[in-house]
């Protein structure tokens, strides 16, 4: 039972990260029908943005800081990282994807792979600037600075034997808050309505006076900001970051998006959590060295049994 609960905690905290990244995939796929390969790398850039912001703005961690200062500092780093990645997402869309929108879909896919590689390997170059920050960070891993001190809930550990840290809780709460905000934006605001209209049929939407280009840009900004938040949440609790660490979570988040039904916003959240839990339970009760293979087995299973995902609608291809 304890083991079961422990896996539940771990699975939820991993699943929340997948869900946040998956939202970006699913929204972009919804409006553009493009698998944004570079999305996992935006997540990586988010973590590095947080790393640099914390270094420049906060300096050394002060153990005597009050809870309020810690909270404000964490918010500053997170929103800053989200803003930087939002800008990055806008730039990628504007200069790499928009010029190709009317070409064959394969063209955009290849460009997306190019962008992904540019970020991964651009970040692996040896630093050009030394001051105030070392950028690019180079190929070896870096340690994310402490923004929020880790503390275990000892009484839970002693009573039920499940180890939970405050970082797990904060990360989960933050992910849920962001998802609720997104849910509100997508289903309750004018922009959200426009976004859903574009994803339904962009030509008709544009005839109805919806500024399609702007909606697509904002979709990228939103998705990238969520990925950045995921990157920072992940880096705060597991502080090793390197330029390639977005690759595998990015792929798994894609699996989560497909599992939930790609193009479906609540589906991506559920898909992320389900995938996180599935991975944790399977890896926990069997051989954990095959952890990375589980997600792809899930993907192949979904594609075989229910290609439209858990919540997706089956659509016939129109000619």
């Amino acid at each position, binding site marked *: 039972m304890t083991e079961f609960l422990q896996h539940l905690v771990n699975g939820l905290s991993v699943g929340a990260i997948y869900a946040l990244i998956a939202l970006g995939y699913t929204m972009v796929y919804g409006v553009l029908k*493009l*698998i944004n*390969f570079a999305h996992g790398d935006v997540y990586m850039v988010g973590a590095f943005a947080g790393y640099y912001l914390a270094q420049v703005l906060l300096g050394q961690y002060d153990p005597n800081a009050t809870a309020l200062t810690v909270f404000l500092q964490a918010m500053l780093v997170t929103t800053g990282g989200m803003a930087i990645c939002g800008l990055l997402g806008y730039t990628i869309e504007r200069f*790499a994807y928009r*010029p*190709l929108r009317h*070409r*064959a*879909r*394969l*063209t*955009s*896919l*290849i*460009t997306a*792979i*190019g*962008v*992904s*590689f*540019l970020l*991964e*390997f*651009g970040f*692996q*170059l*040896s630093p050009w600037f030394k001051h105030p920050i070392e950028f690019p960070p180079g190929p070896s891993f870096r340690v994310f600075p402490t923004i929020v001190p880790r503390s275990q809930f000892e009484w839970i550990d002693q009573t039920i034997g499940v180890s939970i840290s405050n970082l797990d809780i904060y990360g989960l709460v933050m992910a849920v808050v962001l998802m609720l905000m997104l849910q509100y934006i997508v289903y309750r605001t004018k922009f959200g309505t426009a976004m859903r209209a574009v994803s339904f049929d962009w030509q008709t939407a544009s005839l109805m006076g919806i500024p399609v280009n702007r909606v697509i840009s904002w979709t990228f900004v939103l998705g990238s900001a969520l990925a950045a938040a995921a990157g920072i949440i992940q880096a705060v609790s597991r502080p090793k970051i390197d330029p390639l660490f977005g*690759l*595998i979570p990015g*792929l798994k988040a*894609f*699996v989560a998006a*497909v599992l939930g039904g790609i193009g479906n916003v609540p589906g991506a959240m559920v898909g992320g959590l389900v995938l996180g839990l599935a991975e944790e339970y399977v890896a926990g009760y069997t*051989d954990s*060295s*095959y952890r*990375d*293979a589980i*997600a*792809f*087995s899930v*993907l*192949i299973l979904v*594609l*075989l049994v229910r*290609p439209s995902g858990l919540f997706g609608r089956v659509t016939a*291809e129109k*000619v």
Partner: protein
Amino acid sequence: MRAWPVVKSFLPFVIGFPVFWALEQVVPSAWNLVAVTVFVNIVLAVSLNVVNGFTGQFSLGHAGFMAVGAYTSAKITLALSDVQLGFLPVFWSDQLVFALALLAAMTTAAVAGLLVGMPSLRLRGDYLAIVTLGFGEIIRSIIENSKPLGQATGLSGLPHRTNLVWVGLCALATVVMARRLATSSQGRALFAIREDEVAAEAMGVDTTGYKVRAFVISAAYAGLAGALVSHAIMLCTPRMFTFVRSIEVVVLIVLGGLGSITGSVISAVVLTVGLEALREFQSFRMVSYALLLIVLMLTRPQGLFGTHELWDLKILKRLGRPAAAKEAK
């Protein structure tokens, strides 16, 4: 006269063998590995072009199939390294074992291709990209966890079997295969799928079947390339077959033109030799690949050659086409 088509189909190899043999004698040993890499890249690029170029699907798992082939052949040559077939001299016995290992590599890679292709090819092209990428990572994680395959350190001490004759003939075989495929009815079906899948299906083309077949063929040749590479550097590690390797091949075919065998061959030669010359700037290599992809897509998405072939030139048309195409006319 009836024997002529059969003879003709072996003609490239009959001509190729002495050429590659001469090449093996002429090329200085410092450049030997580069020359081998050029030919291996030709095998990889042309075979990936069958899926990505001819069929219009998008596979990113070529390195995974390479790994399957490489490890299969490595296990075979390692197991049979002391065995000498009694009726043959040592040299020929070794070559026979290597040929066997290459065939086994192609077979296992083809089976892996079938297993991956069957579920994913039923769906639209861009899913395949992710599934194959994921498959490559699964293969790597299996190898890294498997004791008989040497885990992360891999297999070492393989016999040095790959020479320019072997790689040259294999590259030639790949090109001949791709060309004959392109001019056959199978090839027409693949092009139809690339141009418009729905229309092709409406015309009675068994789209999934053709896609899976193309994928299996491509995987088999990737396995061949993997086997050749591992016996050239006498080593077989999971690090040789990361997704970066797959992307390198994608860059080759995108540069040469998706669907052009000529383009694949030329860009394989130019890029491999060019990168060798620019070895000092190693760290910029992947960045420049990425920039090359993006700039190419923005300015000339069809690549250097588009879907054109060298043998489409009027002058060369006289040299004749594969027998199958002639009969079809």
